[in-house]
């Protein structure tokens, strides 16, 4: 097995994202950033393949200097090296531009046998990167993978579609996007967290890649005009009683008052 490239996004940690109550805007500036849950599963799968087939696992991120911190977690999990395409702090690029940057960086990391990514990033919910890279690199594309194996030098994958599970085969190299059910990512030990600090994080400047520098500085094909958390006023009443029977009784009274129980 040659190199496996895992695409990792430096994403907003959704579990801690807060919303400004007056503007309803998510507070992104102070938000903690982490490798997304699905990306971790893509990395976990790469590590498992490496354990069986050999090779090395590199991660690739379009991000900035600050991405180094979340990437430490990936290195602690067992990635050999991390690459960051540095687009500059606070710069936002759309999926088209991200895919072009990833393509250029992937070409620098040739030869490789496999590109793994998540089926979608949980913060932007865009689900584009796998298919876009397959198109740009002209590689086989296998999306929504929940089981992956290498048999006789070929990929065998189970894809999870709405109406069926599909078992598919493809030659390497290929682009595979994983779904949540593929595995449970490992939790790095204290030792591996310590060791991760000495693993290489390599920054690739946009200028060093074979892309036009305007793709980052110029206008993007998609522009985000606003982001707002919808107004959901919930009552947040915790119903309490001396006994379970009493609490349940109170709850039922509330529900009758709300008119959502059609009690005769």
């Amino acid at each position, binding site marked *: 097995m040659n190199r496996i490239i895992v695409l990792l996004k430096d994403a907003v940690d959704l579990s801690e994202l807060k*919303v400004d109550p007056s503007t309803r805007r998510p507070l992104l500036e102070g938000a903690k950033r982490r490798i997304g849950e699905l990306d971790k599963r893509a990395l976990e799968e790469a590590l498992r393949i490496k354990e069986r087939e050999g090779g090395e696992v590199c991660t690739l991120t379009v991000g900035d200097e600050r991405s180094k911190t979340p990437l430490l977690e990936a290195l602690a999990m067992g990635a050999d090296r991390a690459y960051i395409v540095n687009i500059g702090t606070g710069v936002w690029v759309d999926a088209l531009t991200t895919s072009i940057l990833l393509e250029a960086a992937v070409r620098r990391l040739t030869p490789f046998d496999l590109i793994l990514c998540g089926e979608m990033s*949980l913060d932007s919910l865009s689900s584009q990167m796998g298919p876009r890279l397959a198109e740009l690199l002209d590689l086989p594309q296998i*999306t929504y993978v929940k089981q992956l194996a290498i048999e006789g030098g070929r990929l065998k994958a189970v894809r999870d579609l709405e109406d069926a599970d599909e078992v598919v085969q493809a030659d390497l190299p290929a682009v595979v996007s994983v779904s949540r059910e593929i595995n449970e990512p490992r939790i790095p030990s204290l030792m591996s967290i310590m060791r991760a600090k000495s693993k290489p994080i390599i920054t690739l400047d946009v200028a060093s890649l074979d892309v036009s520098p305007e793709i980052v500085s110029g206008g993007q094909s998609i522009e985000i005009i606003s982001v707002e958390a919808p107004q959901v006023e919930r009552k947040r009443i915790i119903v309490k009683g001396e006994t379970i029977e009493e609490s349940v009784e109170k709850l039922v009274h509330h529900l009758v008052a709300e008119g959502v129980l059609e009690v005769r």
Partner: protein
Amino acid sequence: MTGKGVLVYSEDKELELQLLRKGRELADEMNGPLSTVSLAQEPIDADELIRYGADKVFLYKDPGFDLNIETYRAALLEAVKRASPEVILIGSTRRGRELAPRIASALRTGCMTECIELEIDEGGDLLARRLVYGGSAVALERSRNRPHVATVPPRIFRRAEPSERNGEVMELRIEKPKHRTIVVERREKSRGDEALENARIIVAAGRGFRRREDLKLLEELAKVLGAEIGCTRPLAADDGWLNEWIGISGHKVRPRLYIACGISGTVQHLAGIRDSQVIVSINKDENANIFQASDYGLVGDLYAILPVLTRTLRRIRGESI
């Protein structure tokens, strides 16, 4: 540059009819034609697509059509070449979501996925609202390049009323591309029906349930309430206890009453229940996020609470145990 008009496609027939309605609206605003593509294993009724609003139907006939991405990518790109639309709408099924970004990359343009509102502005840009941050917020986005590509989930738009209209049916010819992936087996699954979407009351299970048999507690409650049963993704996708789940990647529901039992309340799950009128949650962890998103919360063990709740409701309904 591209011409005018709209092109819509989904391999899901019902969703295609929904796209035809929105597509018709946008096409009329732009004074352009509405085209649709039909790629299917079975011949489909092109006239029906015209009755539902299409001006042009591109038919790709291939008796051996196997829903291979290389094939439908090539067919769709050929249709784009023939129709040169300004807007391309693709149904947001899993197959649609792997197709749309590929088409967009081939055309070097942007793509807005999972759009829940679409509108053309004065400048001819496509504006869309879509869920972001796991489904906890809505972004307003503008697509500036041509053609605009967007995907639309099921049931966002209603299908049009059919009427007798004229249209053109054209055959698509492509050189059959080499398949890069081979499907060696297909295991059909039962597809989600609409029971959850239409339910007035839903009782839902999360990982707080320890064993499949324990869902009986929920079934009893469902029976007395006349409710449908739902669950979080791990119960369906990991454990296979139920077929369908609720949330950003599953069903979006809007019952009058939603009772969440043993559910922690991750953004991915909440995104599917936000339109519920009243949300009740039962969780033994008083800090569980679900309480932030609920109207009424009971802190405690669902194994102790559910039987009492069922019994109480039965009593109120005047039914004997």
